């Protein structure tokens, strides 16, 4: 009996000497593994054009049917994506999504990837339907230009969303950006950068 008591006290003493493993979430966050399948990201090419061409293969591959895409024809003078077609609406129901990543495998242009963001909570269900505004990767071209036309994009910088998309369906205005997950330093891939 005495031996068991000592054993217990030893474990306690060892734990007292080590650092605690609890962290003060959400003020503190753990690094997310580089291949974690968190919330999706829609990517851009270096010139700011969207990679997504609105082909709906992601929606077709989705086993739970949580992706809605509405395509439209590109205006050749002001293209949103390379080629003839782009996604005017791109919505993912994050409550229904099972984060399997089939959409990223189906994507012919690698426009969609699973991102590192895991804090998918909100007080309202409709806010958990991610629109294109939410999902689309930020592009430095918009912030560096004060006015004029973005190279290769042909849209005034005063319009923050080049897609002209989802204007009636845009994401919740004034939504707090929330806490950003800490990305491990090993990942230098810009694709892993969380959306601004």
């Amino acid at each position: 009996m005495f031996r068991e008591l000592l054993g217990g006290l030893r474990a306690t003493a060892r734990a007292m000497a080590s650092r605690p493993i609890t962290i003060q979430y959400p003020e503190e966050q753990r690094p997310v593994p580089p291949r974690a399948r968190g919330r999706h990201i829609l990517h851009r090419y270096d010139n700011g054009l969207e990679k997504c061409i609105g082909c709906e293969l992601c929606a077709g591959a989705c086993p739970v049917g949580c992706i809605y895409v509405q395509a439209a024809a590109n205006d050749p003078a002001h293209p949103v994506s390379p080629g003839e077609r782009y996604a005017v609406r791109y919505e993912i129901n994050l409550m229904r999504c099972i984060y399997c990543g089939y959409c990223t495998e189906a994507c012919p242009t690698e426009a969609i990837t699973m991102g590192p963001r895991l804090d998918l909570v909100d007080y309202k269900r409709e806010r958990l339907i991610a629109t294109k505004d939410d999902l689309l990767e930020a592009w430095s071209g918009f912030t560096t230009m004060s006015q004029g036309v973005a190279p290769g994009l042909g849209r005034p910088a005063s319009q923050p969303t080049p897609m002209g998309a989802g204007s009636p369906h845009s994401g919740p205005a004034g939504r707090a950006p929330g806490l950003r997950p800490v990305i491990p330093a090993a990942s230098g891939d810009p694709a892993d950068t969380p959306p601004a």
Partner: protein
Amino acid sequence: MTDVARSPELITVIVDGRPVQVPVGTLVWDACEKAGVFVPVYCAHKKLDPVAVCRMCLVEIGTLPKLQPACATVASDGMEVRTRTEKVREFREGNLEFLLLNHPLDCPVCDRGGECDLQDFALRYGPGRTRRAITTKVHFNKAVRLSDKIVLDQERCILCWRCTRYYDEVTGEKELVLQERGVHTVVAPFEGRPLQSMFQGNLPEVCPVGALTHAQYRFRARPWDLRRTPSVCPGCSYGCNLNIDTRETEVVRFASSDKPEVDDGWLCDRGRYGSGDLNRADRVRSPEVRLGGPGRSMAYSEAIEAAATALASVISEHGRERVAVLGTPLMTNEEAFVLQWLAREVIGTPHVDHQLLPWTDLSPAEFSLGIEEIEACDAILVVGEQAEATAPVLTLRLYKAERKSGRRVSRVPGDIEAGEAARRIAGASRVGVISHERDRGLAAQVAAIAVASGASVGRLTITVGVNGRGCKDLGLLPNYRPGYVATAEVGLHGRGILEGCQSGEIRALLAVGPNPAVEAGADLDRACAAVQLLIAITPVRDAFWRHAGVVLPGRTIAEKAGTVTSSEGRVQTVRIAVHPNIAVPSEVGLLAGLGACLGAARPAPTAPAAVLEEIRTAVPSYAATAGGLRAAWGKLR
């Protein structure tokens, strides 16, 4: 072998070791289909003559050393066809490699992706790899606008000639041609002129790949987004069958559906691209009562009660004959039947119509000619331009009769003298006379002359609206009850009703909208504004909606279930393709409810199927029309 095998008109063909019996003159392709063996084709098309240019259907036949095209080889007795040999497999693979040589492989942005024969066959029979870098492909023009309706992508074309043959053989307009030679061959509009045909919308459907696409449907949906509902084209009364393709709550396209007796697989552009009318934004979504005050939305049962109360007070104050009922040729048979029941049995007014012009001097010969029988007539006379302008697919049937059967087709203007018109069909023993409802007087005179000269004459009258024929058959007329039983008292026809509204003769009007047949020829706004009480059932914000005291939301034809009767008397089913965004019963239910509130002696059924049963009892010729058959007109009185 059975007796059938020895009969002279049937031969036996062995397809992959399986004997099948086919009529003499059958193509190997059809024999294979009958044997249940699939042979891939691009250039062959059921409605077009064989050319054998795509070389996709090559099969081994008997001891012939080279492969033969199944789509152009006529089967002979005892012929042995092999489609699954190594030689055929290797050839198909090589052929697909050639077809994909300069194909841009832009399936993700192509509207055809998901329902493309090139995709399907490349997956099933293709090599699965390429020997050529994608950067070395020869490029052609993309997204060439051939007209406001059709977009051509020359890169995706596999040169099957289906589109040019369609123009040669089906419409006879020859607007597309093949230009240049060899690998530089492209399909292009003749002399670069924009397409003007009324039948361009069929081009993307005959195209086996994504070279020709609809401008209207461009990038709007993917095949796997669509829910398909077989229905009837709401464009006119010709009765073309089609599929309504919907995405969520939106009708995105009309696709043709082959009904050989009616449309022969084709649609006209007005019908096909009329699908946008079903997505109108100015819809009436909830009942509204504006009697003596500002409009108030209310539950449909209260709105019906308000309408019935207002109508009853007009009846008690001014009498039953001061009430008129105006239907629309866009109604289904069930709605038309219940509406005339409401007018005659419940309200008790003789003033009921669905169109402007009076419909008199009726004869059973009016609709004696079926669309399919046109090809069997020796001579066909089209009286007036309105018939083909209203029902354009008729033109394709007439061209087929001319081209395939060598029939004589004459067209005369609507203001010609009858004797002059009859000379065009003189000497023929079997004559077809086709006219629009507007020109039926002249058509009747011409037919009478032809009958007097000893010819057997069939007449086809193109009616207004999608269901003008059904509205007439089911007594939505001031002078006929259902089944063309003459009424004791002849009421006002459509124009008379509208004039009566303005003169004060008509105090209350129950109108179903929209009514293009009436809107086209009358000042509907003034009549609706003048009438004391207007009760409107309409899906859109038309003139009826603007002036109505009580508005009840209606449904578009894509939201209805029921039957419509085409000009030739074919009773066809329309189904619910889009569920309406209103918590209100269908028109049949609304009209039955209105009847119940007005104190009908016997309640009307509210389900379309139950109404159809009543129609079959009341109108004997409709009893035998289940399954899309024609109502036998001769039996009507």
